[in-house]
């Protein structure tokens, strides 16, 4: 559905159900150069099990108007404003990669509005190498190919996403190219710099009051499990370890669903 957030049109996928006026709500926040379509299976599952779902397109990504926002903090404020626009007082916040930092920061800025925090494929700090930042700046297509290769741990993920017959590496690459090509400016470099620059993660984690759950991929080379240890400790989070690369929702949709269900029962 379309919402007006901070003066711009914003889009949120509602899981194949009309967005109800009340009931438990889950907000899904995608990562760098992605959009809501990385969440559709999870979003549909929760929407068909009694939850209200908002799988957002972040500003400047996909169907949400730009400009892309300059920091994790600004994105967190935007997310809270989107909840306002949707009439949602309190929501579970589920983020992947860059989106997990946005969820963390939003949960810290408005603890009373976060019913739960789920961070998937996460790390803190989420530093990006100078070499990759330079490639993202100078040759985004090459950087997309690199990140796509980094993000997948296998050539055969079953049952695939969104279903059998889908070639995950091709889908991820096509999505990143689509988002990059449709954006104003070099969104890939922008998103990576947003991740790299975020310095408030530990302080944010200390302010979080809701239950926190981390879902990490044991084969993730983008955000390896060890890079989330300090964050998990400060959040006192439960941690699910899944055999997957960084593209967890695509490589291991069933395992991610089961792990999220531990944190957010239907």
């Amino acid at each position: 559905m379309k919402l007006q957030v901070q003066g711009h049109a914003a889009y949120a996928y509602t899981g194949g159900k009309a967005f109800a006026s009340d009931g438990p709500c889950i907000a899904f926040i995608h990562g760098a150069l992605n959009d809501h379509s990385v969440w559709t299976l999870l979003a549909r599952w929760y929407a068909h099990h009694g939850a209200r779902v908002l799988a957002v397109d972040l500003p400047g990504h996909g169907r949400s108007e730009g400009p892309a926002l300059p920091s994790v903090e600004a994105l967190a404020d935007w997310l809270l404003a989107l909840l306002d626009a949707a009439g949602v007082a309190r929501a579970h916040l589920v983020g992947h990669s860059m989106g997990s930092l946005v969820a963390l920061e939003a949960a810290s800025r408005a603890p009373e509005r976060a019913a739960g925090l789920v961070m998937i494929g996460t790390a803190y700090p989420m530093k990006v190498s100078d070499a990759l930042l330079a490639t993202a700046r100078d040759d985004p297509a090459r950087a997309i190919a690199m990140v796509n290769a980094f993000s997948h741990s296998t050539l055969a993920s079953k049952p695939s996403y969104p279903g059998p017959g889908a070639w995950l590496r091709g889908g991820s690459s096509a999505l990143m190219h689509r988002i990059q090509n449709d954006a104003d400016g070099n969104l890939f470099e922008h998103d990576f710099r947003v991740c790299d620059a975020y310095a408030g993660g530990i302080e944010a984690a200390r302010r979080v009051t809701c239950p926190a759950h981390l879902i990490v991929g044991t084969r993730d080379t983008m955000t390896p499990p060890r890079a989330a240890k300090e964050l998990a400790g400060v959040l006192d989070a439960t941690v699910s370890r899944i055999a997957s690369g960084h593209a967890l929702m695509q490589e291991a949709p069933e395992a991610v669903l089961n792990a999220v269900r531990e944190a957010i029962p239907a």
Partner: protein
Amino acid sequence: MPGPSDPAFDTLALHAGAAPDPATGARATPLHLTTSFVFESSEHAASLFNMERAGHVYSRISNPTTAVFEERVAALEGGVGAIATASGQAALHLAIATIAGAGSHIVASTALYGGSHNLLAYTLARFGIETTFVKPRDVDAWRDAIRPNTKLLFGESLGNPGLDVLDIPRVSAIAHDAGVPLLVDATFTTPWLQQPFKLGADLAFHSATKFLSGHGTVIGGVLVDSGAFDWERSGRFPELSAPYAGFHDMVFTEESTVGAFLLRARREGLRDFGACMSPHTAWLILQGLETLPLRMERHVANARKVVQFLAAHPLVAGVGYPELESHPDHALARSLLPRGCGSVFSFDLRGSRRQGVAFIEALQLFSHLANVGDCRSLVIHPASTTHFRMDDAALAAAGIGPGSIRLSIGLEDADDLVADLKSALKAAERAAA
């Protein structure tokens, strides 16, 4: 900076989509000959039907063995996914039926396989889908033929049988300017010789019966989506960008930013038209796909030797192979097909129709039949077989003469093939007497 990349083509041909079977440890892809798959619970069943979870329900819609084949072809083509079909014709029909209906219009090349021409010119016209045919080399004609109701531009990477080289970069640019996708039949080239998506095509399909399988054992097709075409922005495709009452009121472009086309093609096309591939067929074609790079290299090498022989023979009026400077698309082929132009081509015999018959009947190694892309060498007379429904004008438009003979060069020793052709040409000479 140098960095990781996805595995190369030859590796993907062996591994993409397949992993050791978690249940048994089987290394080769198991053949799942089953119609259906047991639900874990009623809730699990409902979630599969609602597309809340991924998985297999019924083998007309998906099957684990068939999915390996689909994912492997998608990987080799550089696409987001694929759908295996009962035949190449079924793949073409699925592509069209997913985005077109009564009142729709298609622009297609004149240089098409006869079966494709039949479907477009006669059968789909009966269902209200009209096609304008244009010469593939006439770039302006592609542009001029596009109408407000045009849904698709369609051509063959190498046109059958004259091997017109489709200028995919230019034709796709014309298509995209109009908000229309370009569909390419890539059967003759396979992704080893050319990946249409890298050149600008949006959809591709194969008769997998041919080179992808390579063994001449089964009929099959496969339709691949690049994921690059923006169906919503185009404004021409409410089939994908508006709620579909036939499937949960799903808006396919919202459901999957880059996989909308395949979602509808599978959830409607396979469900309702039902032209699915048998898992057994998928398994057999997978055996062929594993050696596609090796076979294509040999097909091309053999074809070059045969072309060289025929081009120098006095009884041969001409050979239609784009690697020859005499072919009108020679320069384009050097640019778009640097690895070669495949192993299916036509040549024209001098002399009478009787000499043509004598030639074909004298061949020993070449099999006279209606197929291409087999590991064995094949021969056919298009005007009386594959393209027999076309009148003389349509034949000429497709670059086919009454004396044209089409060869599909296999994997035999090239010297043996040349010897067989030499002997048959002598028989044709004798038939002139």
